């Protein structure tokens, strides 16, 4: 294992993050506050409670997931697309680092960044509502796993993308709807029966449900199933990346 190589990639990526730290910090604070104003105050005053939890508190897990998932994807996809774009990818490709080490460096950094943003959002939310976390360890585990698995997905997207449009279009057209339809702002049980069934094909549902369980002890789908879903998703992403590096698809001529 080339640990120094992994560290070099990780450290380099984090340096870029710290260069724009203020920006990384301010935007989630503002958007979270806006969500609370719009959903928590305006809509929440009409929806009193969801399954015994105040609506303001109910949306917190979904809100965190929403940001963490989209941040993971954009961080990781950009992190690997940018070296492809500038040509600097020749360095890791000709260095004594394995595909796994490259992935750990890039994805680790992207996941760290989104974890940081998740924490900022939780802290911001705590300013608006009384937070309670029933299973803190499970909450942290779900958060970390989500950061990692969606950073892996972002990494694949960045490897695949041939231009900046593709890089931005895919999250916009596919990922954002999945997140919004994943039960961020409502309970699945509030949907008509047909939609409840359709929704079960959305992987994000399992994440948000599990994450919400960690907060309030209630879930749309069994917690074991949530864990299984996220493990399977992570496994699939890793396998895809392994195949990409194996075949050199879009990275080695």
């Amino acid at each position: 294992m080339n640990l120094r190589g992994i560290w070099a990639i990780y450290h380099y990526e984090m340096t870029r993050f710290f260069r724009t730290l203020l920006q990384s910090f301010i935007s989630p604070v503002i958007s979270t506050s806006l969500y609370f104003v719009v959903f928590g105050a305006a809509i929440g005053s009409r929806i009193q409670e969801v399954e015994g939890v105040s609506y303001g508190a109910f949306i917190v897990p979904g809100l965190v997931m929403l940001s963490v998932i989209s941040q993971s994807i954009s961080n990781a996809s950009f992190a690997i697309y940018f070296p492809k774009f500038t040509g600097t990818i020749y360095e890791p490709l000709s260095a004594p680092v394995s595909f796994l080490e490259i992935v750990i460096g890039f994805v680790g950094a992207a996941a760290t960044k989104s974890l940081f943003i998740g924490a900022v959002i939780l802290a911001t939310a705590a300013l608006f509502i009384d937070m309670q976390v029933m299973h803190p360890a499970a909450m942290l585990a779900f958060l970390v796993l989500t950061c990692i698995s969606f950073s892996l997905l972002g990494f694949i997207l960045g490897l695949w993308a041939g231009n900046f449009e593709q890089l931005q279009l895919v999250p916009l057209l596919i990922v954002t709807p999945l997140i919004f339809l994943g039960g961020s702002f409502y309970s699945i049980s509030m949907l008509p029966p047909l939609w409840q069934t359709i929704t079960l094909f959305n992987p994000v549902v399992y994440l948000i449900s599990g994450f919400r369980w960690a907060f309030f002890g209630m879930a749309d789908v069994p917690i074991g199933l949530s864990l299984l879903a996220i493990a399977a998703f992570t496994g699939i992403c890793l396998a895809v990346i392994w195949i990409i590096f194996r075949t050199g698809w879009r990275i080695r001529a």
Partner: protein
Amino acid sequence: MAMVEVEGLRKVYDGGFEALKGVDLSIEKGEILALLGPNGAGKTTLISTICGLVQPTSGAVRVGGHDVVRDYRAARSLIGLVPQEINLEPFSKVLPAVRFTRGLFGKPRNEALLEDILRRLSLWDKRDTQTRALSGGMKRRVLIAKALSHEPEVLFLDEPTAGVDVELRRDMWAIVEELRGRGTTIILTTHYIEEAEAIADRVGVINGGRILLLEDKKRLLSRLGRKELRVELDTSLATLPPALQNRGLALEDGGRVLVHTYDTAADRSGIAHLMADLRSEGIAVRDVSTRQSTLEDIFVSMVAKQEEPA
């Protein structure tokens, strides 16, 4: 010991284009090899395949005895690469960029070494400058610093002096000279024949994905020691008279020019003899000129010969 061994290397790109058509090459430890070839000859493809950027279609490459595909970690640890294109992250500063490369190769931090490298490349004053703010020549220096940062035993320089200022070229040659003293193996590609003459031990000519010539520079230069005497005749000859035959003479320009090739290092040039014979045969001479063939001539004629339809 052969430091770099290439055997029957072929590369067919995805579009079906065959950029390397079976290359065999063996480079000794400490040797400096210059690869000369026109654009599209396959120089970059060859280097990229050795360095792991391009996957070989068939054949084998070993660096330091390690197969570059199967044992890539050991092989790549030995290799420093200065790519042809200026690939740099625009927002990164010079010193962190060089430090990054060293780390990527798994080497422990060594700030003193990096300072030394940057100073020798006149980059120390620019260590905190973002690479996008550097001139083209300076950017290339950063690429060289990156390649040297992990103390490679084999250094690949892909057209390092194409379009750079005289100063950088001089600095580069000085660095190559110093690395040679330390036993580093160096492979460089170039368009410039003077460059090959100045720093290489051996010269290879590559075109159309094939190595056409691979020869010790000194021997090549002694070949260059050959000179041509061109004798322009008053009236053209259809054939050589019997007295002048079997002496390696050639008729050119429809018999108007007689070409005599001789070795400058030899005791006798044969010129006086030839002139005497011409007079006794009654052949009038209008003009005489001499011409020394250069590496460029050899190169151009080899490439031209290869491009003739078979």
